[in-house]
């Protein structure tokens, strides 16, 4: 593992939502181990700090939105600058995760990108309507992630 491997420890710095210097922190959620490794590399190649989660529940826990976690009103800004999640996951789908994020006061401003290997317009529209920033077709390419990075920068 190289020195810049992703850390899953809590970030204690109080980041403003748009202020992340040169390295946005991305939470990548996918139940497939190969896809997790791939998306992590793609994001790191685009100068992002990456935390991965293997399912929606773990993702929510990391974000502090787990069922048994009290909403911390003192949270200043969010831990992550972007959430990228697979759509098809057992239990909580990427769509369910998207909804939970958008329903939370602390996290609703965080852009959420949905990935899927299936190009289904109704699925895509459903996600966009629920507030997804973007939909990306798997397998992701480096050029897709670079574009995403640019979009993220423009947002701030």
């Amino acid at each position, binding site marked *: 593992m190289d020195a*810049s491997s992703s850390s899953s420890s809590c970030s204690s710095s109080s980041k403003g939502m748009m202020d992340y210097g040169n390295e946005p922190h991305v939470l990548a959620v996918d139940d497939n181990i*190969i*896809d997790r490794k791939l998306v992590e590399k793609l994001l790191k190649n685009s100068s992002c700090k990456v935390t991965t989660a293997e399912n929606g529940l773990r993702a929510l826990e990391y974000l502090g939105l787990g069922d048994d976690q009290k909403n911390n009103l003192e949270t200043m800004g969010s831990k992550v600058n972007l959430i990228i999640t697979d759509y098809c996951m057992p239990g909580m789908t990427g769509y369910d995760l998207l909804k939970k994020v958008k329903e939370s006061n602390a996290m609703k401003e965080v852009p959420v990108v949905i990935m899927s290997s299936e190009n289904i317009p109704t699925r895509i529209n459903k996600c966009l309507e629920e507030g997804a920033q973007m939909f990306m077709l798997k397998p992701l390419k480096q050029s897709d992630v670079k574009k995403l990075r640019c979009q993220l920068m423009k947002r701030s």
Partner: protein
Amino acid sequence: MEMWRQVFQYKESLFREGILDAQFTQLQQLQDESNPDFVAEVVSLFFEDSERLINDLTRALEQKCIDFKKVDAHVHQLKGSSSSVGAQKVKNACITFRNFCDEQNIEACFSCLQLVKQEYLLVKNKLETLLRMEQQILAAGGAIPMIE
């Protein structure tokens, strides 16, 4: 020079035969000095994951009462993994497999499982050979051929 040419021809044949597709090239292009074993790691994960899924599929199809939803879920995973590493024939076999799951066609599912196993073993063998050959080129200070 000779080794490079051999590797080039070998690799080119894998693409021509549809065993590997452009996604494999994408994967190789992601590798850099900060992570020189990236491709080997991903391929290794793919082998482990595939073998696990194929075992799960075999067991699932052996049940008296086949749970096609479960079978489909496993095939979906394998389709995803194979797609992500560029194992095109495995991916295509999975696509066919899923169609038969939808139809709940037991006979066809059994055939598909056999095909998936075959294609997996083929790509495993080819990838192991390819990566070994490419490693030799790298060890000799050369650059590996990329198939666009």
